[in-house]
């Protein structure tokens, strides 16, 4: 019967509207988190740039000590891969793309004969790799949305321990870089040995004074102490950028979901109206038909 169809449609519209409410709320929450995580990212910039500058200066002052700590190792038997993903889903391709990049990296390392050990951040990461038969050595969860420096320290301590003990010769990081609110991309970088990129450290003033820098204590000792701190700084930055990217993708995904719900609601409303119109027409036809039959029968 036509009335039955109308009722089902009305129920579906209600469901779609309820879902829309949720996606809209998530969109707004994510949008407010974007601003916050971007602010945290820019608050971190001074520290991160300063850290890079100091590492660079110390490395240039003592190149022999630097050689042990910096640069790409010639032979990598075992590498540690750190993948930074999110704790929650409903964020578009954010988790999938970074996790896939990590998987590819592990695959290509294996092809080169390197054993890869996986350390992951984010609740979504470990199940993904376990399902694909990759063992995850350690999974850090619970702070991907709002990482604190203490969280970064925990991750860094775990990663650095393997490197210092000589268990791994290289530490690679797979994470999402936050270029701007409109552009994020997955990137793989080497964390350890530290990569000193002169272009990455904008040192306006110190650039012209290299070679005249005094050190306290001497650069070799400084560099040794500096390495774990620099690692913490880089990991913290990756976590912050990951969080910012996560919120951005979630906002975008939820905005799209809200739009879809709107569209679906509209289509369903149209179908429902037509069904109602149809049933009314049928009813009128029946009444008219009945009346006509009665009149002719008289």
């Amino acid at each position, binding site marked *: 019967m036509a009335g039955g169809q109308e009722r089902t449609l009305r129920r579906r519209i209600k469901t779609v509207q309820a879902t829309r409410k949720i996606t809209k709320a998530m969109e707004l929450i994510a949008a407010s988190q974007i601003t916050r995580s971007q602010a*945290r990212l820019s*608050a*971190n910039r*001074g*520290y*991160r740039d*300063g*850290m890079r*500058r*100091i590492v660079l*200066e*110390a490395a240039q002052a003592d190149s022999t000590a630097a050689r042990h700590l910096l640069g790409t190792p010639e032979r990598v038997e075992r590498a540690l891969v750190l993948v930074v993903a999110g704790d929650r889903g409903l964020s578009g391709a954010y988790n999938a793309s970074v996790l896939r990049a990590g998987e590819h990296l592990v695959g290509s390392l294996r092809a080169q004969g390197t054993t890869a050990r996986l350390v992951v951040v984010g609740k979504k990461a470990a199940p993904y790799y376990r399902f694909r038969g990759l063992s995850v050595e350690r999974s850090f969860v619970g702070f991907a949305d709002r990482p*604190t*420096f203490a969280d*970064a*320290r925990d991750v860094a301590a775990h990663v650095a321990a393997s490197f210092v003990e000589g268990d791994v010769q290289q530490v690679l990081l797979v994470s999402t870089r936050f270029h701007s609110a409109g552009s994020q991309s997955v990137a793989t970088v080497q964390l350890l040995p530290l990569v000193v990129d002169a272009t990455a450290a904008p040192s306006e*003033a*110190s650039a*012209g*004074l290299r070679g*005249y*820098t*005094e*050190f*306290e*204590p001497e650069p070799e*000792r*400084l560099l040794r*102490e*500096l390495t774990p*701190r620099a690692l*913490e*700084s880089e990991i*913290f930055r990756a976590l912050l950028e990951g969080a910012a990217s996560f919120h951005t993708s979630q906002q975008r995904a939820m905005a799209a979901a809200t739009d879809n719900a709107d569209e679906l609601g509209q289509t369903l409303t149209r179908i429902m109206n037509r069904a109602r119109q149809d049933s009314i027409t049928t009813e009128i036809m029946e009444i008219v038909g009945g009346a006509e039959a009665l009149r002719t029968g008289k």
Partner: protein
Amino acid sequence: MASLVVELVTPEAVLYAGEAQGLMLRSTDGEFTVLPEHATTVGDVVPSVVTVATAAGPVAFAVHGGYFEVVTAGSARDTRATILAGVAERTSDIDVPRAQAAKERLEARVAAARTDDDHAALTLAVEALARADLRLRAAHEALSAR
């Protein structure tokens, strides 16, 4: 005149940024004072109280270890001093009763770790205790200076 700009940054925030007359800190090699036109230097900061002398009086920070960079450049010989600290706080922001309570709690934890012979826990507890102790000392210094 040559000027001095001091910046104290942590990974989560910029704690201080502005003109200063001087900067007092402690590195592995000892006490260190930075004045305008100080030679370009890079070094570490041991857990201690770092004081920035400003026109409005000294501002003190409890710095739980970090690094510093002093750069003097340009024709004006302007000096920029940056302190990078993993954890730092303004001494006037320290809640003394809370810091005291934290210290006592950590002392108990150190004692517990010592009796259990748990080396990892002991190291952690000793480090945390050192931080709590510095925080408390810094807060007391701030109070007595007032």
